[in-house]
């Protein structure tokens, strides 16, 4: 008799909990389409610095290269780990410190003269860094900055935000 009671309790619980939640593949809920895109992107600093850093010796500097950046070592690398090609755009999320007038970003090589420029008038506007980064692609960026009468501080952070768009 006790055994029968136990079965009754178990079955009652089953009927209560069975109705709580369903997966997307039960009798009346169906997954009808899947887009198997993987949009994973990774950000690297080949210099080994924790971020893109500029160490100015004074308040005025012209085409100051990112710290530890060399001809062979870029300041930033973006790698497409996914399975669609992506366009890469970038902009700063807020205005630069007063006095910083340019940041130049060169794609694929360390030639400042062929770089694209952000100015203190448009640093928060997206610019296209790479029109199409292949699904297994990786692109490196060399970066310089110019400033005049920039306040001396222990360090000011600004965020360069990277936007990816599937192409």
């Amino acid at each position: 008799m006790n055994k029968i009671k136990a079965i009754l309790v178990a079955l009652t619980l089953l009927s209560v909990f069975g109705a709580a939640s369903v997966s997307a593949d039960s009798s009346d809920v169906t997954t009808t389409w899947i887009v198997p895109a993987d949009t994973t992107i990774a950000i690297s600093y080949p210099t080994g610095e924790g971020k893109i850093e500029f160490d100015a010796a004074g308040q005025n500097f012209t085409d100051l290269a990112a710290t530890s950046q060399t001809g062979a070592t870029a300041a930033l690398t973006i790698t497409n780990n996914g399975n669609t090609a992506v366009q890469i755009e970038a902009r700063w999320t807020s205005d630069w410190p007063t006095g910083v007038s340019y940041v130049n970003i060169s794609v694929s090589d360390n030639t400042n003269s062929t770089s694209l420029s952000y100015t203190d008038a448009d640093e928060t506007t997206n610019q296209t860094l790479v029109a199409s980064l292949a699904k297994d692609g990786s692109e490196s960026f060399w970066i310089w900055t110019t400033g005049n009468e920039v306040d001396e501080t222990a360090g000011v952070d600004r965020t360069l935000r990277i936007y990816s768009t599937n192409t």
Partner: protein
Amino acid sequence: MKKLAIILIAIISIAAISVTSYSIYFTDDPIIPLNTNLRNSYNYTAGATVSPGQYMETTFNDITGDYRPTYNELTEDQYHQFFSELPEFPKDFFEISQLIYDGKITDYSRVSPSYWKQPEFYPGWFTSINNTYIDNDPNYWTPEGYGCYPAIKEISAPSDTTITVNTYFRTGYATESYQGLIIHPYLPDTAKDLRGNTLFTQPDSSKKYISVAITNPDNPIYNSFKSSLPYNNVADNDWFCILKPTYQLLKNEYNEVTGESGFPSDWVRLLEYEITIAPDTPSGDYICAIKINEPCHQINQEFYFSPDHEYYGRAYYPGGGILKSNIPHFQVVIHVE
């Protein structure tokens, strides 16, 4: 006794109906395959090319003792360093992985981690391994990398239902930090195709009828200190997540490199996205999504300064602040019938 038997039969019948209606199972009917035009309502790719992975015959790998593919340029030590914490590589791995890519297997909660915890499961691996693990420059510092696979699912459901939909949320390859990320479930204003074009506009009444939540367990370390924070930006139905590194240089006490490590067993999380459709929800299409937000300063400070866990110091990295996608990381289109 006879009465009891009748009651028992009645309850068994009710329970059987309930189980039939609500259990997680597959029917034997053909699952809708990708690239047929049977049920999808929208042009989700909009011309963007979504590439499959490589699906091949498996052969036994003497180094790993399972069916992991052979990578000619990896040393025996690297095989062990990169893959030893992962589940055994199944013999039918590529067969199952391709069925998932093709959209024939749709209930991810039934797929064994032996498949989805392997890097080979993700379509970009075989082309990414060369510029990450094989030719990886040890001077690189790769702190941020994450994504969902797949990006979009389309579901058909009646009102008065709660559904759990899964996607795989993972660390990028050769990413070296413990990334703190906030997963935010929400109802966006519009559904997007892969290129970011609007597919349809969310019905005005959506918030009245549809609610979304993440149901994975929270990160226990975050949970241990969250109540003491003066402020945090993790909303009630957000999920704070640590994604673990997929590559690290191992160093000795003199800061000399002694080796490498690769994939921990939990570098991918099966994200459980719960969608509740209220009774009397008007029929039509609704869009639910997930986006990734950056943890606030107060949360980050706790991880930087607390030396009693593996995420301590420079190994911790607040993700979600630099990388942004033009579309949500995961979208679920729901046809309410």
